[in-house]
């Protein structure tokens, strides 16, 4: 592999990892603070992508889709938390897994009923519909650069919120000891609702940003969900920093797996995960 090709592949891996981070960060936050393993997280990603398609097709603008869609999904997250997830906080993991698995089935049907089974494309915003030449042969669509930058911005913003705001302080306290937070007189229920809704919005935002890149199709959430699990496991549950590192590692190992071990590339990611677990059973940041 020539150096320029190698550099290009690194770029591809990082870009893939960044998008994955956006999904996984919501998952890890919700788990870290609420203690709920949310299988429906992938469904929020999928619904986000479908909303992006649906709104963009009507308004002609992806930006409008994000501005309308993200609040809608945050609201959906709030409703789901109140109706279903809130009943799970004191329950075992089995109940959590199954209830959210049931939600996955329901959301799949919801998507079928609302949007049908077809595959849809979403146009990239016209401002970003140009390409940046890379090397002699290949070009990179500007939109990919945009999503990568957007993901980094979201990551930075999350870091600021968690480290510098009152809300973030409560989130950190909640992640380390939920009972303590309750004892301090903070309304944990409200904190949990807001956080779950934020996690949902993050997943949906990732789906919306990814929509022009991946196209929109039924079942798109499940592959992302399993990969996000791998990211969270590698990174260490509840750790945003870990999720960031994990996502980059997964993105890179998937990219290089495809090039170096074609035919078994999908198993590479899981092998990496097994290796990390062997060395650090609680994840990179755990």
């Amino acid at each position: 592999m020539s150096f320029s090709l190698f550099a290009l592949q690194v770029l591809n891996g990082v870009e893939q990892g960044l998008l994955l981070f956006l999904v996984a960060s919501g998952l890890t936050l919700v788990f870290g603070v609420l203690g709920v393993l949310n299988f429906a997280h992938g469904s929020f990603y999928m619904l986000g992508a479908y909303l992006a398609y649906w709104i963009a097709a009507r308004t002609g603008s992806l930006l409008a889709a994000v501005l309308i869609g993200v609040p809608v999904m945050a609201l959906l997250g709030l409703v789901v938390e109140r109706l279903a997830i809130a009943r799970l906080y004191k329950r075992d993991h089995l109940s959590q897994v199954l209830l959210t698995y049931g939600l996955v089935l329901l959301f799949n049907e919801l998507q079928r009923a609302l949007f049908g089974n077809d595959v849809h494309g979403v146009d990239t915003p016209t401002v970003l519909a140009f390409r940046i030449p890379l090397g002699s042969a290949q070009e990179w669509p500007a939109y990919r650069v945009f999503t990568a930058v957007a993901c980094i911005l979201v990551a930075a913003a999350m870091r600021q919120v968690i480290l510098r705001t009152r809300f973030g302080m409560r989130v950190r306290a909640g992640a380390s000891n939920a009972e303590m937070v309750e004892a301090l007189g903070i309304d944990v229920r409200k904190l949990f609702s807001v956080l779950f809704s934020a996690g949902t919005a993050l997943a949906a935002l990732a789906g919306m940003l990814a929509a022009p890149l991946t196209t929109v199709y039924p079942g798109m959430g499940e592959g992302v969900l399993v990969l996000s699990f791998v990211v969270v496991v590698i990174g260490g549950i509840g750790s945003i920093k870990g999720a960031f590192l994990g996502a980059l590692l997964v993105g890179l190992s998937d990219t290089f797996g495809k090039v170096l071990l074609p035919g078994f590339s999908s198993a590479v990611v899981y092998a990496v995960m097994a290796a990390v677990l062997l060395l650090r059973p609680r994840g990179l940041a755990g």
Partner: protein
Amino acid sequence: MIARILLVAGALALLAVGFSGDRFWLQFMGKAMIGCIFAMSLDLLVGYTGLVSLAHAAFFGLAAYLLAGLSNAAGFVNPLATLPICLAGAAAAALVIGWLSLRAAGVYFIMVTLAFTQMFYYLFNDAPGLGGSDGLYVQERPRFLGLDFSERTTAYFAIWIALVIVYLLLLRMLRAPFGHVLVGIRANEQRMRSLGYPTRRYKLTAFVIAGTLAGLCGYLDATLYGFVNPAQFSWRQSGLVLMTVLLGGKGTLYGPALGALLLTFVEHYGERVTEHWNALIGALVIAVVLFLPRGLAGLLRD
């Protein structure tokens, strides 16, 4: 006492189906009974040891593929040879996956087992010579001493015997010291450790036993249908059996078996009622989790 009579009556009723000779019901109930064994074996982990594993389908699929491989490539048809090999294969896989996964506790364990299931799925889906997503036929199904297990009746009785043996075996195991230790681990693992139990070793043993039984299910399934496919490895299958255990009532052994039977029938008749069959299942799962956490067995006891 009443429960015991009901169980015996149920077993005899299942046995009676074997004499009906009806080709549909033989295969239908055969599949349902395999589901019973599958759910009971998972209950050993979920209900008794407190381990929520999503790797169960992997062992099922692995044993099924092993049988297909032994039959197609090596021409092995004698179950006295193929059954031990397939079970050993499932057990070995369970040992490796269990050893790795049990390094992680609680929710990590769930995610890691899920990831391993996916890995197995891709390995079997992508590996050359395994038929890819089309799957494989078991060209020559097990037969010996004039018994041909591609005959539905013969296969049915074999499955029935397996079901009865597995039930009695698990029952006995749970009443033995080993079973008590598992229950202790589920109830309070920290305490078990401070009492001097190397709990991980016990959990791993339970994981391997359950995985081996899941392998038995795969073996029986491949024998009954003569067809194996990577979809049998998919995490949806693992999710489904987990749901069966909860629906039936975890930690009761007979409950999950009951759940498997019920779900087979619901699936058979439910599909005619509505096209949105999966939404129905989804709603059912949510309802069971929220309103019936002890499952059908809990209902029966009250």
